[in-house]
């Protein structure tokens, strides 16, 4: 366990170095918008994730990849405190947002979620009209909006959905296709004007064409938002992400419980073309069991 942790740290350092070399095309190194420092996440006594260290930078897409059960979704959900909704979930270490610990004693999870939005694996529009799905967030947040109609249009336009739905805003969101519903959920997230958008396998329930549309959309959104995406699909990570974090699950020596660890973090090209860790290479090349 210790060895692997050290390993993770070491490869991360290497990854970061590489980032600097590769960095000309990327925004310069600045303080990460979200930064994990020695993060471990527990469900009651079960340690789901152990000692994760990495950061997500502004206007970049960071992908979290790895096999099932490696804790990548757990890490993602800890970024906007969605794990709070699960009884017994607990975070150790620090997760900072612009340097402020989001698990600090005075921090309100609701304020965190306003700034760090989330799109889920399965599209989950509310059983309301398309319009009300978008207007819901601004309304519950008491946002002072000059014109809700304009805001709805802007959010739908940014989510590349406006042209398809502009004539049926009052109709139920359930009449939309799966891909449209997922773009609606992205539009809904955009409408509260967050800074970060977390995406938890946003395309896993969609067909390939809808998936490509979402990926194109992510590239657009990257200009205005910081995106963190969990994906099972390695090609997707390679296509869309600026940086990639590879997680895996390792059995504990004593209990046999499987705990997620961060193996390697770096810019996507490095992770996919010349990974430093053997485990990353095995996974990327499909040799993973």
């Amino acid at each position: 366990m210790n060895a692997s942790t050290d390993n993770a740290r070491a490869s991360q350092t290497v990854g970061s170095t590489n980032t600097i070399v590769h960095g000309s095309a990327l925004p310069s190194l600045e303080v990460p918008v979200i930064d994990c420092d020695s993060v471990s996440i527990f469900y009651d006594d079960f340690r789901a994730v152990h000692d994760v260290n990495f950061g997500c930078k502004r206007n970049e897409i960071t992908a979290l990849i790895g096999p099932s059960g490696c804790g990548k979704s757990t890490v993602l959900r800890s970024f906007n405190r969605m794990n709070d909704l699960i009884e017994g979930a607990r975070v150790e270490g620090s997760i900072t947002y612009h340097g402020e610990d989001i698990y600090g004693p005075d921090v309100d999870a609701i304020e965190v979620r306003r700034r760090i939005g989330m799109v889920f694996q399965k599209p989950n529009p509310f059983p309301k009209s398309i319009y009300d799905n978008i207007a819901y967030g601004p309304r519950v947040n008491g946002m002072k909006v000059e014109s809700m109609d304009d805001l709805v249009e802007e959010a739908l336009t940014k989510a590349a959905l406006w042209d398809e739905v502009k004539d049926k805003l009052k109709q139920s969101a359930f009449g939309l296709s799966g891909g449209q519903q997922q773009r609606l959920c992205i539009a809904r997230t955009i409408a509260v004007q967050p800074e970060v958008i977390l995406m938890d396998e946003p395309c896993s329930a969609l067909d390939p064409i809808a998936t490509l549309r979402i990926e194109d959309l992510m590239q657009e959104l990257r200009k205005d938002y910081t995106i963190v995406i969990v994906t099972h699909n390695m090609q997707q990570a390679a296509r869309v992400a600026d940086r990639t974090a590879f997680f895996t699950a390792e059995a504990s020596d004593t209990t046999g419980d499987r705990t997620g660890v961060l193996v390697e973090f770096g810019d996507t090209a490095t992770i996919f073309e010349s990974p430093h860790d053997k485990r990353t290479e095995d996974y990327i090349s499909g040799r993973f069991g």
Partner: protein
Amino acid sequence: MTSAPATTEVAHLDLTRKPRPWDTAARAIFRVAAALTIAITLGILVALIVPSIEFFSEVPINEFLFGTRWAPRFADASFGVVPLVTATAWTTVIALFFAIPLGLGAAIFMSEFAHKRTRKILKPVLEVLAGIPTVVYGYFAVQFIQATVFRDWLNLDTGSFSVLSAGFVMGIMIIPTIASISEDAMSAVPNSLRQGSAALGANRRQTSLKVVFPAALSGIIAAIVLGISRAVGETMIVALAAGQQARIVGGPLEAGQTMTGFIANAALGDSRVGSLEYNTLFAVGLLLFLITLLINMISIWIVRRFREAY
């Protein structure tokens, strides 16, 4: 157990129809059960309608529906049902006034705010309320609520009976019905909707009232309608606590006889089969049935109109 031969020949292909006696029997049993339910309902309806027709051959339907004096046993008998309807309306509205907010509040708390363990304790306790015999509720209303609370403690200007005490206690009786069914409906709303709402920065109150509640609305309406039907049809509590005098009820502290209260009282009496007094029971029963039917139809319309399906 040797491996199958590599030829394409299938051992023995038999696709002919075979007799399945248990299948046939089960289907017949279920069909009889379904038919019986419908037959019984129709039978009750016929049993209500036939004496009612006789009743209306003697009493004009206008006089029955809009007459304001109910005195079927007096020498100068009068059959205006309005007094009974006002008493039923008062007790029902009062019952719902207490039962809907408390029942829905309890449901929202159990479904959205309570910890699992709290819910596990609270729900069965609440359902015990539904198991108390209504005659117990009735005496509770007369002896404690009306006599002790209203008259002795609060010094209210009221007699031995009132539609308020009957309605209030009836409301308590209905709370578990409304709470339990609404809670089931809200618990059935997928968690993904709660998470979606939370991820937009909504707090629990907003999530439960603006997402979960509307999504569960059809189940909640069903719960309320069941509550209304129970209140309209409830007999023992009102027979004991609302009063036996049929008169137009003008305020909550007045006494009055409800439709069910009248039926219960008159049915205990010695009205001869086929007499006008006897037929009166069925006319009131039919009206009660039609009112419940109307409420059900309105609720179905409401559900269709405001439904937010998930």
